[in-house]
């Protein structure tokens, strides 16, 4: 396999990591919590999508349902659980630990629930387009119509998000609340609502990532745990606070892991992601594009 092919193979999976990183960063910016439950939320939304697909036979309605359920689940998690954890985490020590443990617990709850509702075995998720590599000048490349679809969907989703963040009052309020919640409240903005919205948007992005990745990973209650790890790695590479950084981090990670897999074999993929994560944390904890003081939390 030549190098260019390997890079191409990494782009669309990288785009999915970007989406997951985006979800984690949104939550981090709005609440300063790393949402480990996102893997469970995304899987739950994907299951909802699968159920709708089975019932209607329509990929697009299923896609929409998955994203919408992601939005709703995200909002519910924030309103029902996160809000109270944040309120009761008054000391620095509890504020650092309680949310992490709570999110891990929530992940367990989601996985248990999914097992109860949909069973524990792996199920296939359909694609909208063919998964065979395109043939260019007589050679098949490792990039299929389905990969192209993934890439287009992620680019469109990210462009819409960028527009909302940069051009609307809501986006302005979300950015301000991320960096200076007190000043934002004093400006008359209901920061608690902005937080709920942040979790909702993140949930939608996670649901979308789930539907896009499920055809290759299959869907089971814990099948997105790796996606979470890769999304988190991408987010940290980009510097947790920077949405653009997270997106670039996802693409870089997707391509980097494809290169490692291509030259060293698939058994190195998982390890490489962790090594990368640790290197970034050691050398540049603020991430590649992270704002100064991103770790001030």
């Amino acid at each position: 396999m030549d190098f260019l092919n390997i890079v191409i193979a990494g782009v669309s999976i990288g785009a999915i990591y970007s989406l997951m990183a985006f979800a984690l960063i949104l939550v981090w910016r709005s609440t300063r919590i790393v949402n480990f439950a996102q893997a469970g939320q995304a899987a739950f939304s994907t299951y909802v999508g699968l159920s709708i697909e089975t019932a209607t036979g329509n990929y697009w309605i299923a896609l929409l349902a998955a994203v919408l359920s992601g939005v709703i689940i995200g909002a519910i998690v924030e309103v029902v659980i996160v809000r109270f954890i944040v309120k009761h985490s008054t000391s620095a020590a509890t504020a650092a630990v309680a949310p992490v443990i709570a999110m891990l617990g929530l992940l367990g709850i989601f996985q248990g629930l999914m097992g109860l509702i949909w069973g524990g075995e792996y199920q296939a998720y359909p694609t909208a387009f063919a998964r065979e590599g395109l043939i260019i000048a007589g050679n098949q490349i490792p990039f299929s119509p389905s990969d192209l679809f993934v890439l287009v969907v992620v680019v469109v989703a990210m462009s819409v998000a960028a527009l909302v963040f940069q051009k609307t009052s809501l986006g302005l309020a979300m950015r301000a609340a991320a960096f200076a919640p007190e000043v934002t409240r004093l400006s008359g903005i209901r920061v608690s609502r902005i937080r709920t919205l942040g979790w909702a948007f993140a949930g939608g992005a996670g649901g979308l990532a789930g539907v896009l990745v499920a055809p290759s990973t299959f869907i089971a209650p814990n099948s997105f745990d790796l996606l979470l790890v890769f999304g988190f790695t991408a987010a940290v590479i980009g510097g947790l606070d920077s949405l653009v950084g997270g997106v670039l981090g996802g693409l870089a990670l997707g391509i980097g892991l494809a290169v490692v897999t291509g030259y060293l074999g698939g058994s190195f993929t998982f390890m490489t992601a962790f090594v990368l994560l640790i290197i970034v944390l050691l050398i540049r904890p603020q991430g590649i594009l992270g704002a100064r003081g991103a770790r001030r939390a």
Partner: protein
Amino acid sequence: MTLRVRGLTIDHGAIRALSNATFNIPKGSITAVIGANGAGKSTLLRTISGLKRATSGSILWDEIALDQLQTEQIVRTGIVHVPEGRSVVTELTVAENLALGGVWRQRTNKSDVLAAISEVYQLFPRLAERQKQRADTLSGGERQMLAIGRGLISRPQLLLLDEPSLGLAPLVVEQIFQTLSKLQQSTGMTILLVEQNAMSALRIASQGIVLDQGRVVIADNAKAIMNDTALRHAYLGY
């Protein structure tokens, strides 16, 4: 509208920040709250704007009991708090920081938000020159102007200013205080100014309130406080 503070007691954990304070802030005046560091000045402002809750006592804004409202709602009653430390969103541009002050009434009164923004640019031309710059590239004085400007976009009837002179060069302080004084005269708004820099604050104020270890020791007209040598020695240290 008049702000009436009655028997206000505020605790900071085990420390009593304000003890049984009672005073009025008359409409259309500048009141300077002065006193040493730790006298409870910032805590008073944070409680008025709803960031902190009082232990006992009440704060009435005409008929509105502020202790029943959230910070975001208090802004809607016309009280705007500019906290200490040049509180701007450093990650946003100058224009975005100002726009932030108008988001809550953007939908109902967009034209007035735009008018308020251009008034702030007239008041502080330096900000107009730096519209597109991120707030963390501004000097300390410019940041303070931006923090005040952000507050003005909400069209306050009562502006709560916490230590606007903190860490700024005397000339910049003078400029900001003169601007505030002019602004008060042209708009008729009420300003509650918390300051360690007692002289500068009293010079533009009509009323002064001296806090010492959480107690109101004097509430009088500003000139009388400035001319009272014994009082100045005892509480203001000069």
